[in-house]
């Protein structure tokens, strides 16, 4: 989780990722940010996030994104 928070902080340093649960709904992350995150995640965690997983529920919070990474690692 620490590594993920570090990646997210690099995208927007002023966001409190530990409490924010509306990263997509409130337009904090745009499509450019999402791709940057996925690219970083793929090199950091050796997991590929497919396009069909790019839905608000998976990106609205750091925790949701972390759960997605864990799920994909398990598959």
């Amino acid at each position: 989780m620490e590594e993920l928070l570090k990646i997210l902080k690099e995208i927007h340093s002023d966001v409190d990722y530990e409490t924010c649960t509306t990263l997509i709904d409130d337009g904090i992350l745009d499509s450019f940010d999402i791709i940057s995150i996925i690219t970083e995640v793929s090199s950091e965690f050796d997991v590929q996030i497919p396009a069909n997983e790019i839905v608000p529920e998976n990106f609205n919070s750091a925790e949701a994104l972390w759960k997605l990474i864990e799920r994909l690692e398990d598959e």
Partner: protein
Amino acid sequence: MSFVSLGFLAFLAVLMLLYYTVPKRGQWILLLAGSVFFYAFAGWSSLIFITVTALSTYFAGIYIGKLASARDAYLKGEGKELDKEAKKAYKAKVKKRTYLIMSLCLILNLGMLAVIKYTDFGISIINGIFKTNIGFLRFALPMGISFYIFQSMGYIIDVYRGKYAPEKNVARFCLFVSFFPQLLQGPISRFDELSKTLYGPHDFDWDKFARGAWRVAWGFFKKMIIADRMITAVIKLSGSPDQYKGVYVVALVLFYAIELYADFTGGIDITIGVAEMLGIQVAENFDRPFFSLNITEYWRRWHITMGTWFKDYIFYPLSVSPKMLKISKWSREKLGNAIGKRVPVYLSTIIVWFATGLWHGAAWNFIVWGLLNCLVIIISQELSPLYGKFHKRFGFSNTKGYNVFQMFRTFWLMGFIRVLDVYRDVPGTFKQVGTIFTTANWGDLFNGSFLELGLGRQDFIVVLIGCGIMLTVSILQNKGQVRDNILLKRPVAIRLAMFALIVLLIAVFGAYGIGYDAGAFIYGQF
């Protein structure tokens, strides 16, 4: 059959009457019959193309669904005891087959679109490069083909991704592809959204019906009073570029922005309104785009369903594809982290905007239009930290005045890119825009020259008042739907009187006359 015709109104009246009379389980069948009837007006040959798309997508969806069900059943039954790696290998094997079926469906349909829409463009490029003289094939573009093929391709990709199960009933699926209000110019609906209300049953609800009728009337108001009036001046200004330079180019940017907005949003209002009258919810395609503060926001609010289609089915898959991630990794190693992490995003953005331009039309002006949009978006993205610092330093980023300036800037920036549509000549467009700085004819604004563009003084007054009404409605929409907040809260007698008034206004001030083509919705040609 054009929306703006008595024939369409008669068709609609008969359809509505039957729709709320037949047994409810037959409503969607009636809609399918109505859609086929509507489409047949565009020519029987057009029906062949839409049938090929509907049936090929339907059967591909069914096949993918069967493979997916068999996979799930196997993994729950016989394959339950397999180890993780074996399960993974089995899933990959099935995925390969479903991918093949989806790909064949995409190739067939997008290939059909490419042949019909882009063959002549390809021939013109070959003729230009190799100095050959190959004749053009001049295929007639079937009505709405870009819209229904994209809608169907969205469906098959979603089924492949397992987002939802395929529709089992072929007739129901055909209605999804051919639902008549959205055949002409979209929106590009998603199956999981549209199917919630498309198949009914629907009881007649006076309030819902009235809401829909208001929206239809509002669409006709924009289309007939504003767009079809402005088109005369737009054609004249863009048709004689040597004659109309300088201030006329600025006027063309403004006039075309008004015309396109009134035309496209008016058409979509009619589509959504007709669907509402039938009790069906169609996706919104606009969110007052001229209030956007920047071009990225503009594209989130203009032609929304096309933007999200390109984002979900091209931009994201491309950006996160293994090949793109490899490119990203390579560019990080070779070019450094800062540039490397931008590569997949910007490369995908360029490809998507190239495709968006091409989707709009088989011509260089559309491709350059797409790439210019892309360039502005990338520059904005790169400059955003600088803007942030600038705004923080001077502290006016959220003031109303600055927001108005941003809207004004976005409106004109988009307007200047958009005139590529009307000049249809890339060097010619740049040359014309250049004349703004070299031709001193601003005095023509006041000497009556603008009254020689095919619009009289009264026409300009009507357009001005019409635009004032559109602007007022857009501002009122800040607090929700005008229909709900203002119109539908009045007593029935007042509501009827107001509706009669808008119909009367359309009848009296709608543009008819020489050169007027009621069928010509701008987005219908795409």
